[in-house]
């Protein structure tokens, strides 16, 4: 393990999982190991959100990378606002901050994509071997993708955050920069739209 890797592990042990202010301080000090640790801790969840929002693996990775780079750039500002040991440090959640950035980036990209190439997002061509299990899994995947991707952007984000990521409504609302009442209204509309679309598919069959 490198020296920076040692620091990273030590910081995790000393600071504990909730103290993101220490991580922000290390990022502000331009510690690459801290950024790697952030990717390890939050990269998977961020990628899931981005992928389920866009339906594209490459796009999702781009979004996660951009979010991580923004954290790297803005770490000095974040650290200055949440100094280690202060009361503000207890309120800092880098995971939530990254999730907010990913949701906003995903919505931006979806809007841009829709503007450049109007129409529905095409399903990926299935290039896997034509085994029965894979075909069945692919069908389920395609159905779920179709259901989620048919939702408007913000409703989609609400479903992804609350159903797939199982975030409490308050955290999901914070990730979308909304107040809780507005978010609950949005979530209600998203579930209604989802059920109607699912029922429509059943009728079609």
């Amino acid at each position: 393990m490198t020296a920076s890797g040692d620091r990273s592990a030590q910081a995790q042990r000393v600071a504990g999982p909730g103290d993101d202010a220490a991580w922000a301080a290390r990022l502000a000090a331009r510690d690459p190991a801290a950024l790697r640790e952030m990717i390890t801790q939050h990269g998977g969840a961020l990628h899931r959100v981005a992928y389920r929002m866009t339906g594209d693996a490459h796009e999702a990775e781009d979004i996660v990378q951009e979010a991580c780079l923004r954290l790297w750039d803005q770490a000095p500002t974040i650290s200055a606002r949440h100094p280690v040991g202060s009361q503000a440090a207890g309120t800092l959640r880098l995971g939530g901050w990254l999730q907010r950035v990913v949701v906003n980036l995903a919505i931006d990209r979806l809007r841009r994509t829709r503007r450049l190439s109007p129409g529905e997002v095409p399903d990926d061509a299935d290039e896997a071997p034509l085994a029965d299990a894979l075909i069945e899994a692919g069908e389920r995947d395609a159905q779920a993708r179709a259901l989620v991707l048919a939702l408007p952007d913000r409703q989609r984000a609400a479903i992804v955050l609350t159903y797939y990521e199982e975030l409490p409504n308050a955290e999901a609302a914070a990730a979308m920069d909304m107040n809780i009442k507005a978010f609950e209204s949005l979530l209600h509309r998203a579930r209604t739209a989802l059920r109607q679309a699912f029922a429509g598919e059943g009728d079609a069959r």
Partner: protein
Amino acid sequence: MSVNEAKQGDPITPGSPLARALDGYAVPGLSAGFADRVLAAAEGAAAPLPPLRRRASNGRGWRLGRGIAIGVVSFGALASAAAATGLLQQFDIPVPSAEKVWARLTGSQPAAAAATAPVMAAAKPKSDAPAALAPVQITGPIDTPEELAEAFRRIDEVREGRFAARRALADQRIDSALERRRAAGLPLPTAEQEAAFRDKVEAAQARRQQLADERIAARRDEMQRKVESGEALTSEDILRPLRDDARALERGERIERLRRMSPAQRREALRRLPPEERRALIEQYRAGRAAEVPAVVPPAPASDPAGDQSPAE
């Protein structure tokens, strides 16, 4: 919202057909070397640019408002200081005193107000000041020669006090002007020049006092005739000529200012006046020229607008 719609918005129950359908949305893992790529991009990226603008929380609106408030207060302070030091009068900008404004509004006795002006009070002679400067109160009609004589006597007392105060004020101003010149290192007049100047000021004062005396004497003769013939004089009979005199004096000052203007400026200033006032001004100007009254305003002594009148005449 119907019951059916409300149910459709309920949370998605795990194990339900919709949940099973949604759970089929599988997510691939991050590609190998993703973290390395992000780190390489982070280390290779240029430092972020500083923010271009200040945040809105810096209170631009308050700064602007504070600037305006400071400007207004400063202007008010400068204007007050200029008015208080007489700077405006040096540039021929009339600054009416509060007493004069009130007198014009109410039509009350301007000379009596002038008697209580701070300048006069500051320059009053110490010997007989309190009694001499007290305004004469006229209550009830005057219908006997004794009452009229008593009124004239009291008025003369006040007049004497005023003349003394005016002389003291003129001396004080000349002294302070000399002191300022001395402090500024400017050349001072010789003793002969100074004495000549003081004589000139005194002569001007005497001339103005003489003119006032003539007017007063004529008016007193008329009043005495009225009282002897059994007519009672009210305060209005005494105060009205005073007001006329005050107006005449104001017009005199205005004429003096007009004299110092160029012909074009004078025409413009006259054109701005109300017609009645303009006619009165021109008439007085012509009368002054016909009588060849020297309209010399002494430079140093007090330019009290109601100075030539006694308070109750």
